[in-house]
């Protein structure tokens, strides 16, 4: 029974592992360079991964459910949305890295609308705005980021209404 559960929990990782092995037979050089670049990405984000694990467990253990619900719960309104959007804008690394973290927060009473807003705000990266301007031009950058914020706040709420 326990083995079955493990298999179920790790199904995706096992599938990826199989894909990698099959591809390694077809094109070893590409797969080995892919593995190397995956390792690089992992090492690059290592500190963030450690920090997320520490932070998530800290929040879960020390902050009472009610408090989390009050700050970023479904009913926390515009304040919660702003907190979520700010968090998404400031955080680094790919959004999916934070999914387990969001899971813990959800379990602690965070609203789905807030989390959806946070993930949406991920497209806005303040640290990268100067780079975006040089590459894309200020007009495109400005409108892109600005429309993002407006649409995402309303969509996050809309989405949360269903959950």
């Amino acid at each position, binding site marked *: 029974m326990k083995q079955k559960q493990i298999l179920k929990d790790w199904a995706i990782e096992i599938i990826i592992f199989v894909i990698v092995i099959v591809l390694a037979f077809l094109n070893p050089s590409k797969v080995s360079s892919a593995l190397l670049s995956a*390792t690089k990405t992992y090492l690059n984000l290592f500190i963030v991964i450690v920090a997320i694990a*520490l932070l998530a467990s800290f929040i879960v*253990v020390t902050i009472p459910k009610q408090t989390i619900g009050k700050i970023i719960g479904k009913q926390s309104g515009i304040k919660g949305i702003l907190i979520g959007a700010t968090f998404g804008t400031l955080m*680094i690394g790919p959004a999916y890295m934070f999914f387990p973290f969001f899971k813990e927060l959800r379990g602690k009473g965070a609203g789905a609308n807030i989390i*959806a807003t946070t993930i949406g705000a991920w497209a806005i990266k303040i640290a990268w705005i100067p780079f975006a301007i040089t590459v894309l031009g200020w007009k495109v950058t400005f409108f892109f980021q600005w*429309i993002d914020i407006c649409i995402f706040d309303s969509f996050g709420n809309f*989405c949360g209404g269903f959950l």
Partner: protein
Amino acid sequence: MNTNLIEGVVLLAVVLVLYTVYFVKGAKGKLKDASKKSVKMFIQNSIRLFAIFTIIAILEKFLSTKAVSTFLLKFSGFRGIIVGALAGSVMMGPAATSYPLGQYLLSHNASVSLVSAFLFTWVGIGVVSIPLEFKSLGKKFTLLRNSFTFIAAILIALLMGVLI
């Protein structure tokens, strides 16, 4: 140095300060629980993330960004927006890598709408990370968030087209 490292260190420092404050306050039992849980979480997340990093790297090696851009340039108008959004959903990576791609597309006369749809779903939707989202946040959430993000991407693209 890259910003990942700097911001990562800042984030870690903040978390460590939180732990220290609790330690000084004397809530050692809770801290022990938290660190135990974090070790477990760290190992689990590491395996899951490494799997995703691997599949993204494989996607990159077998599907070059140049090929994707050349493909995208064949489309225009509303179809361009849809194809751009779809391509962005499949491709993944840090937001910063998508900007030069956007530049390449723009300089080759792709519409602003196509580029914005592409840039938006690049970050907002990840076909590769859907299983992880599914596992962490649930079926309903994943389904709704991704479909809304897709619709939002298209709306944003249309708006961009009107404004610029």
